[in-house]
């Protein structure tokens, strides 16, 4: 494989057998102004009067024309409660179909079984945002011949629209669906809220199969998220998933003193910059610290009577409270972290359901992350150039997700990364981060419980932070301070002749490579 250095000094391949050609990363907005591609593809029409109801998943797969080497997709809105991916792969395997590209919007902890389907040859390529557990370990150990491709939410949307991901069959779970294929995730016994990723795939897949455990009379009311004209088949099953496992458990406000201290520092920084003002827009991750920051911001907005414009996400219950109290005019929801978000979508007209292209695709007429004032995101680790890793663990194994991290960071006027100084005895700040997912130029500040480091590119923020007497520290000083407690870690034994994952930036260029871990 021919490797070149990208603008961050990371080696990335230009040509990968089984995947194709790639360009190296040249900057967060290097591709701005270039034309966006939209691919055309052939798809079956459904003749007038033909029933779309298919008896079971197996028959639906046969009807879809799925064969060896094709690409299948799923949304991950049911997160850890999803049952659909396993049901479908099981039938695919029993039909003897092999060598597929699995291209879900992401894989969660409950999708570890994908490892078995890789080993049995059903899946030979994976395109995903996140990967962890047994399947993450399998990929990190180099058991797949072709490297996986990790994309951000905005990047996947762009890739689908331009045809880099060419979905043959999309299997879309819906918590309510009628017999024409009008579907939604906003209500029903297995409601999961926004079906944003599903909306994207439904538009761009050659064949769309709706899978529901709640078949209702036509027309679906009171809300249709994906309309029938995009859907080929409808399959009713006993259960699409367990919505109680959907909430990642991070919707509670943290009580950890350390996390609250980090949150307080982040809030003080945001306040000092003076950006919480009428029309303020905000995105926060779903982690404990982010939710705590949201609470501090909420109190500030309430006390000062400030009305913001919109909240973006990753929408959680606490964001909706802000919406319903009139502190935000709108909430844009590409994925709900709480099953109750469906209720909110039904009763709050400005709880908008959006697809990931609207959310974060940098190559369209203006995605929502580009409108953001502030985003507060987490990190696995960081380096002194402010690059962020949210993908690989300290042991070198794949155990995270690109998500909307680089999308939100690039777009926000103030992008703040919150992280504890060290986790489990290992420093969060390194000289060089193991895997770059978000480039340092997109990160304005890093906030820990031991201090705040401001990106030297943002002297304006530095001045305001110093004026407010915040605990500002030079990032190298902060790193040294933390290292004096944790010590330096020993290098991971990577086999650099074997890339196992390509990290694609939102514009399609390669920002980093993940290598095999020698055990």
């Amino acid at each position, binding site marked *: 494989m021919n490797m070149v250095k990208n603008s961050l000094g990371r080696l990335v391949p230009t040509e990968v057998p089984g995947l194709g050609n790639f360009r190296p990363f040249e900057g967060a907005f290097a591709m701005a102004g270039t034309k966006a591609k939209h691919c055309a593809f052939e798809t079956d029409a459904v003749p007038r009067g033909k029933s779309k109801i298919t008896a079971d998943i197996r028959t639906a797969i046969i009807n879809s024309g799925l064969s060896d080497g094709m690409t299948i997709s799923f949304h991950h809105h049911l997160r850890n409660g999803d049952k659909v991916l396993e049901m479908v792969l099981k039938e695919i395997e029993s039909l003897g179909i092999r060598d597929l590209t699995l291209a879900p919007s992401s894989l969660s902890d409950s999708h570890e079984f994908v490892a078995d389907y890789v080993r049995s040859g059903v899946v030979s390529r994976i395109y995903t945002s996140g990967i962890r557990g047994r399947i993450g370990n399998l990929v990190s150990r180099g058991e797949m011949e072709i490297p996986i491709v990790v994309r951000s939410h905005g990047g996947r949307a762009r890739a689908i629209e331009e045809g880099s991901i060419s979905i043959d069959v999309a299997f879309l779970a819906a918590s309510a669906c009628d017999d024409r294929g009008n579907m939604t995730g906003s209500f029903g016994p297995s409601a999961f809220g926004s079906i944003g990723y599903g909306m994207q795939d439904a538009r761009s897949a050659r064949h769309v199969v709706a899978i529901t455990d709640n078949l209702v009379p036509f027309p679906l009311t009171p809300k249709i998220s994906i309309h029938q004209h995009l859907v080929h088949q409808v399959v009713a099953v006993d259960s699409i998933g367990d919505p109680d496992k959907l909430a990642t458990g991070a919707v509670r406000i943290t009580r950890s003193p350390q996390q609250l201290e980090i949150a307080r520092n982040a809030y003080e920084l945001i306040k000092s910059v003076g950006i919480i003002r009428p029309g303020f827009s905000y995105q926060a991750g779903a982690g404990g610290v982010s939710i705590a920051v949201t609470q501090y911001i909420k109190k500030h907005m309430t006390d000062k009577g400030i009305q913001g414009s919109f909240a973006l996400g990753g929408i959680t219950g606490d964001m909706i409270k802000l919406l319903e109290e009139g502190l935000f005019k709108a909430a844009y929801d590409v994925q709900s972290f709480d099953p109750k978000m469906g209720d909110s979508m039904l009763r709050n007209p400005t709880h908008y359901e959006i697809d990931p292209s609207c959310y974060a695709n940098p190559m369209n007429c203006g995605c929502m992350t580009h409108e953001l004032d502030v985003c507060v995101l987490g990190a696995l680790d960081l380096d002194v150039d402010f690059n962020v890793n949210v993908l690989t663990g300290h*042991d070198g194994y794949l155990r995270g997700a690109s998500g909307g991290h680089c999308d939100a960071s690039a777009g926000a006027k103030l992008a703040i990364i919150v992280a504890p100084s*060290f986790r*489990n*005895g290992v420093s969060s700040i390194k000289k060089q981060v193991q895997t770059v997912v978000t480039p340092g130029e997109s990160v304005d500040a890093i906030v820990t419980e031991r201090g705040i480091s401001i990106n030297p590119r943002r002297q304006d923020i530095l001045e305001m932070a110093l004026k407010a007497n915040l605990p500002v520290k030079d990032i190298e000083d902060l790193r040294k301070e933390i290292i004096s*407690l*944790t*010590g330096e870690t*020993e290098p*991971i*034994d990577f086999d650099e002749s074997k890339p196992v994952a390509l990290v694609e930036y939102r514009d399609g260029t390669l920002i980093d490579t993940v290598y095999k871990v020698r055990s």
Partner: protein
Amino acid sequence: MISSKSGTDGKCDCIVTVEPAESVTLEYVSKNSSIYAKRTEDLVRRTALRYGLNGIKVKIEDFGALGFVIQARLETAIERALGGAAR
């Protein structure tokens, strides 16, 4: 010298167990074992030397502890093993 242990399985703590032995050996059980292997070995050897021990079998179950926390627990385990005050 008798077998002894110190520490807890609480978050960011470690349990250090020591036993008499012919040589200095270490069993390091941890999510961090690949990135702090050398550090932990050096720590155990240095400490054994300081206590004048030619041989000691050390087992460290590390739950994300900082290096000096492991050091503290190891010292206490050794002192208890050598008959130090555990009361």
